[in-house]
């Protein structure tokens, strides 16, 4: 292995394919997005440089603020819901004494393998005006009736729930895998010391899953910011763009108004937001790593 690591040609050849794919399919398109956001490009003709016009328009657009608010709500809801329930369910089924754990493990993951369209059709039928949910309230003699997907302010919460419900299983699988990698000795030692099950998970499982949580947090938050499909299918971004996100703004500007330049300005802001979130998450978790390192070196010195 050392020989290969010392072989610069080998390193170069192994790195080149991945690097080329990254450059061609990720890096260059992102640069193009930023470049075209300063133009009046309509997707087909030669673009003209328009400076900051698109950005100035974007910052003056009420839908831009609605979109950012929606993204934030969406990201927070799916992150909290998915990480909380995924952790609870993963810890529950990791108990070998529990009956039906195999069934539950599959059941929690099933929504993940379904198509987003199928899931949205399913929830659309449940949440529509004459849908199952309102009918259930009616069946129980309640007057409570909601326009779940048509409410200007509440619809985004409902859409976020649909997304969280579907993708919780993904985080659940990651956390289950993480729990499996924790040696059982730790729990045995904790039990000998008189530690309860809950405390053992609080003190052992959750801290040792820090890296898994970091990954879950990144996919949840960036997934929230990039949200599009659910609102496209369930509400069409309505009523009156009240369930828009920046991705939806981009789609709307590009394909409904043939104004790619404006759409790409929205996309650029979205990319920046995603990058900022990544930086913040990395910063938070790096701080903890650094603290641990410091703690370790302090212990070594005192020993």
């Amino acid at each position, binding site marked *: 292995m050392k*020989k*290969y690591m010392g*072989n610069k*040609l*080998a390193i170069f*050849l*192994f790195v*080149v*394919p991945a690097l*080329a*794919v990254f450059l061609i399919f990720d890096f260059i398109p992102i640069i193009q997005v930023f470049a075209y956001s300063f133009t009046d490009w*309509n*997707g*087909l*003709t030669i673009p003209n440089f328009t400076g900051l016009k698109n950005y100035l328009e974007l910052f003056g657009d*009420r839908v831009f603020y609605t979109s950012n608010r929606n993204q934030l709500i969406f990201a927070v809801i799916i992150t909290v819901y998915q990480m909380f329930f995924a952790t609870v369910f993963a810890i529950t089924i990791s108990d070998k004494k529990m009956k039906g754990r195999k069934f539950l493990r599959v059941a929690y993951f099933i929504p993940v393998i379904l198509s987003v369209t199928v899931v949205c059709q399913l929830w*659309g039928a449940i949440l*529509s*005006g*004459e849908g199952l949910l309102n009918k259930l309230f009616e069946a129980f003699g309640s007057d409570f009736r909601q*326009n779940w*997907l*048509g*409410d*200007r302010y509440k619809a985004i919460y409902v859409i976020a729930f649909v997304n969280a419900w579907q993708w919780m299983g993904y985080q659940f699988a990651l956390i289950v895998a993480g729990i499996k990698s924790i040696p059982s000795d730790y729990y045995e030692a904790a039990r000998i010391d008189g530690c309860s099950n809950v405390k053992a998970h609080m003190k052992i499982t959750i801290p040792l899953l820090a890296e898994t949580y970091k990954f879950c947090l990144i996919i949840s938050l960036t997934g929230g910011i990039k949200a599009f499909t659910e609102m496209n299918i*369930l*509400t*069409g*971004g*309505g*009523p*009156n*763009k*009240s369930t828009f996100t920046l991705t939806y703004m981009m*789609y*709307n500007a590009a*394909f*409904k*108004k*043939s*104004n790619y330049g404006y759409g790409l300005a929205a996309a650029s802001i979205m990319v920046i937001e995603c990058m900022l979130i990544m930086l913040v998450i990395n910063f938070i978790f790096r701080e903890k790593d650094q603290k641990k390192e410091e703690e370790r070196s302090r212990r070594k010195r005192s020993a």
Partner: protein
Amino acid sequence: MKKKLVSAIACMTVAASTLVGCTGSSAPADTAAPAETQTETPAAETKTEETKTEETASGDKVTLSIYTQYADDDTKVPYDYAVEQLKEAYPNVELNLIVQAQDDGQTLKTLAATGQLPDIYQASTDLINTFRESNQIMVLNDVAQSTGFLDKLYDANKDLAYAEDGNIYAFPFSGQEYVLWYYNKALFEENGLEVPKTYDDLLNCIEVFKGKGITPLALFGQEGWNTAAAYDVIATRYATGGIKALDEGTASVTDEGYVEAAKMMEKLVAAGLYQEDATTTNYDQASQKFLSGEAAMFINGQWYIEDATKELGDNVDWMFYPAADEASYEAGKAAFSGGGSASGFAVNPDSENAALAAEVAEFITEKYCEAKVMYRHNPLVALDTGKEPDSEYPAMMKKLSDTLPTITSTTKFTWGLTNSTFNDAIQSESQGLVSGQFTADEFVENVADAQ
């Protein structure tokens, strides 16, 4: 040295195989876009599987790709008829159908951006304007002349063929079309109601129907054009130009008539004219509500006459739009919402068989018109086909035909609007009004910003 050589070869093999893997996807990518559009009907799926034949010499089979709607009887019947007729008139031409996706032109624009436009495609006004700028739409003036298309065009539809620059870019098959306010006669009679002439009458109808648990008017507000039409049928009672005048900039939404229309719509929504979840209701759901008698009224184009008559028979009719008072109601009978647009079959100028495609596009347009007259009982087509329907016109169509000579003004459907920013705004803002969660003032302010 030998080991180094082996390791270098191994690395190069890995790199080469990875890159080959990447480039290998180019062939299927050619078919990716059409495949994406095959979701509409099983029939369409089988059609897209037809293999493309290479043009070699004259007399050999030529396959032309065509991107058009193929979703319901109104679009399937004309297409199937045109294909049958094409076999006789052009035995060496086959059509490869790519079913049009309801995606705001996204698929077509993507195909255009990647140089993969179909030979013939159905283009709306917005697409025509976009592709004109990028020279991806063929000027059909000569073909229209040589094939006699212009001679067959009804006088009332002459304008529909020409774009703003005076050229013909698409062969329209639809003539002047109208937004009709359908109602269930039986439900009105059962509840002792007369067809509303004024908004006060309409408010009374709303109250009675709501009291009986009947939705007064089923709207499919998930589609922006339907909410825009719902606003337009009110706006035309106050300003005959309706949304067309707003689109062209000859009127402002801050004008008194448009503001009053927005306020009236707000009032009707508050009274419960539309179902509560109108903005998330699609066409199928709304139509089902109307056809099953759960809703008393429905707003759609005149193309719905056939389907409504089939289901409701004599129990369905359309009414003139209600107005503020009886005088306005009578005066407004001549002003309809809707109208024609320059939409139709366009041709890709970069097609290998562009000249043939243009001829075929004209032929198909003609056959579409024939099928619509003969089998869909819709005489409102762009061309004079000289054909008669296979059975009597439905009563509603007869009524419309009798009314046509008295119509003095029309507006536009959203797909005929030319200002895409306004188009986007009127669709979403009218949806906001329908939802009952946005005020008329917000509507006026936001539409004015987009004008």
